[in-house]
């Protein structure tokens, strides 16, 4: 993974000193709260319901064990001993004090981390495929691209006061595990069909929230070398022409929608053509320098089959079940990538205690070449584990309540923090996730249902990505109580789709029954091993709406 050079190191240190100075100027009244707010947001500092919240960047979801240990230490020393992994693969602490944050940022700088631009109207953390570098279907590792964009976008003098937030995601595989079509810019690495040269498909204008939209292709093939110039062109068009009159119409997706993809593309190409590539782009040597950090690690040469692993699987049904759900095939024979579920039944999704973080760090050191990944589904991944080590890892995970066998299943629920923590929320989301996980806890039943992604947001801002959940749940307020709208048919992959509303909002206690009815329609109607989302696509929403209406009338 990337290692800071002296320039990167100085950059984050200076940024911490700058924030310390900004806090000082806030305290002495030089800066008003309105002026200070975007400055603190651009260092990841939110004001939430009960306390400040610090959102720490985990660039493209990659962490070293050393970094994970530092997060554990920060959680203990300055917070309440736990953190929350988010849908943009960042880490949030819910209880830091503003007075301590400069010191926390210094601790982060000690391990090559920061909280730069994890909020604010600027370019945010660049996310990528959590199986980058190890997935079998990968064309090229997206992380060198993500790291280059991270540097280029950090404290960009021209693009730090955008109309609104700006999110970029990169994938290097055809199967999109990075939700690129729901990002302001999504980049897919591909080979040119004729020349076989590596380049990018550029997608612009995806986004969730109040007006969810799927991104549009504005450039089918962008040569790799032209990346920064093309991004500059997109950002300049957006910065100048994005709406500033209405916060809810200020994302680039609205601009693309209002002027049309063709016109947007034309304006970008016009600006891009005007730019002098050589003076803007990164030179090939710099691109190669960054890429070298992501070269495949020194794997052992192993047989594809591990006798010890097969024996353990045959001998232990619990282990076998976990293998079935939480393992992903690896490009290197004899290895696997494993998903550490942060969704134990009944617990807040995506949370990890400092102790758990240390367990993961230790396991990473011993069994995964010291590397950890964070997924947008709020889980963790150990990306380089030998098949022969899996049983030992599973046992150790089990001791720390990190071995729930539910990756991708109905209890692997994505939920934003919601009204339990968030000042923007209209309803709680975590208790809904807990109730659903408890209702569907039975492992046999989960296996029968198969892959089913439930995503829950506690307000219209959609941080829980409910629009692209197979089942989405949106928490609103109706007549002074929390009310939950259910959507169906969303998809976060390369088959991106926005879910449709099934009917009027339900009270919290009625949500599990409604989900049960939806699932039973699926089980009754599915054909030969058809997944939930495939079934919804085949039979359409009508049967589900009918079933939903029965529930909604019963409780009305």
């Amino acid at each position, binding site marked *: 993974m990337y290692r800071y050079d002296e320039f990167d190191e100085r950059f984050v240190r200076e940024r911490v000193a700058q924030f310390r100075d900004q806090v000082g100027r806030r305290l002495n009244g030089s800066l008003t709260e309105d002026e200070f707010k975007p400055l603190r947001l651009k260092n990841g500092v939110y004001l939430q*319901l009960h306390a400040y919240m610090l959102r720490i960047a985990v660039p493209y979801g990659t962490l070293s064990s050393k970094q994970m240990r530092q997060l554990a230490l920060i959680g203990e020393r300055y917070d309440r001993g736990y953190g929350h992994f988010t849908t943009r693969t960042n880490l949030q602490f819910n209880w830091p004090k503003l007075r301590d944050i400069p010191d926390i940022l210094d601790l982060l700088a000690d391990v090559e981390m920061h909280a730069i631009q994890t909020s604010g109207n600027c370019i945010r953390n660049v996310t990528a495929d959590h199986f980058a570098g190890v997935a079998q279907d990968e064309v090229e590792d997206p992380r060198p691209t993500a790291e280059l964009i991270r540097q280029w976008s950090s404290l960009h003098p021209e693009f730090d006061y955008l109309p609104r937030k700006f999110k970029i995601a990169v994938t290097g595989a055809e199967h999109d595990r990075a939700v690129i079509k729901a990002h302001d810019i999504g980049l897919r690495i591909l080979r040119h069909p004729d020349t076989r040269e590596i380049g990018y498909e550029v997608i612009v204008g995806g986004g969730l929230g109040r007006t969810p939209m799927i991104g549009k292709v504005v450039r089918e093939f962008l040569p790799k070398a032209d990346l920064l110039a093309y991004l500059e062109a997109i950002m300049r068009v957006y910065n100048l022409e994005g709406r500033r009159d209405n916060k809810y119409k200020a994302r680039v997706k609205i601009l693309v929608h209002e002027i049309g993809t063709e016109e947007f593309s034309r304006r970008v190409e016009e600006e891009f053509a005007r730019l002098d590539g050589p003076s803007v782009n990164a030179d090939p040597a710099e691109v190669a320098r960054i890429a070298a950090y992501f070269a495949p690690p020194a794997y052992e040469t192993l047989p594809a089959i591990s006798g010890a692993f097969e024996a353990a699987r045959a001998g232990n049904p619990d282990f076998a079940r976990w293998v079935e759900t939480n393992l992903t095939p690896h490009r290197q024979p004899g290895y696997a990538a494993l998903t550490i579920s942060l969704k134990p039944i009944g617990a*807040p999704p995506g949370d990890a205690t400092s102790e758990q973080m240390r367990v993961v760090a230790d396991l990473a050191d011993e069994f995964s070449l010291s590397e950890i990944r964070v997924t947008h589904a709020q889980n963790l991944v150990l990306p380089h584990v030998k098949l022969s080590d899996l049983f030992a890892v599973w046992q150790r995970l089990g001791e720390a309540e990190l071995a729930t066998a539910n990756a991708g299943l109905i209890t692997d629920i994505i939920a934003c923090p919601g009204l339990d923590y968030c000042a923007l929320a209209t309803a709680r989301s975590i208790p809904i996730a807990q109730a659903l996980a408890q209702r569907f806890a039975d492992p046999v039943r989960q296996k029968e249902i198969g892959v089913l992604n439930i995503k829950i947001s506690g307000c219209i801002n959609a941080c829980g990505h409910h629009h692209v959940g197979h089942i989405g749940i949106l928490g609103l307020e109706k007549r002074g109580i929390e009310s939950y709208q259910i959507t169906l048919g969303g998809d976060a992959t390369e088959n991106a789709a926005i879910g449709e509303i099934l009917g009027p909002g339900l009270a919290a206690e009625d949500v599990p029954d409604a989900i049960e009815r939806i699932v039973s329609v699926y089980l009754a109607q599915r054909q030969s091993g058809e997944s939930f989302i495939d079934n919804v696509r085949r039979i359409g929403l009508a049967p589900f709406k009918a079933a939903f209406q029965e529930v909604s009338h019963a409780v009305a």
Partner: protein
Amino acid sequence: MAAAKRPALPVILLANDLLDGDVVFAAGDTNGLHWSRDPGAALIGDDDATADRLDAFAAAELGNQHVVDAYLVDVAIEDGVPVPRHYRERMKTTGPSIRRDLGKQAELPLAQAFLRA
């Protein structure tokens, strides 16, 4: 900045401490107001004059960099305790519903009174 419409009386004043982020409540009496972390100690503004005093206190405290996001919240009085009417504001008096071991509900005995079944 246009003044928001005042919520229905009675009201309490809450804010977040600038340096620490904790939710704080305007407490005190005719002699003076101060901030308390205890929702049970909140001064109840049951007439316009008191609500005006709370507003003035908010403006002063925002201006001298002690608090942020200060606003009046309408309450119902239950056994003498001012309970915010809206569930969002009630959440600020207790802490996260899914972690009863964190926040005011764990630290302050009076905040227990704000917990709803």
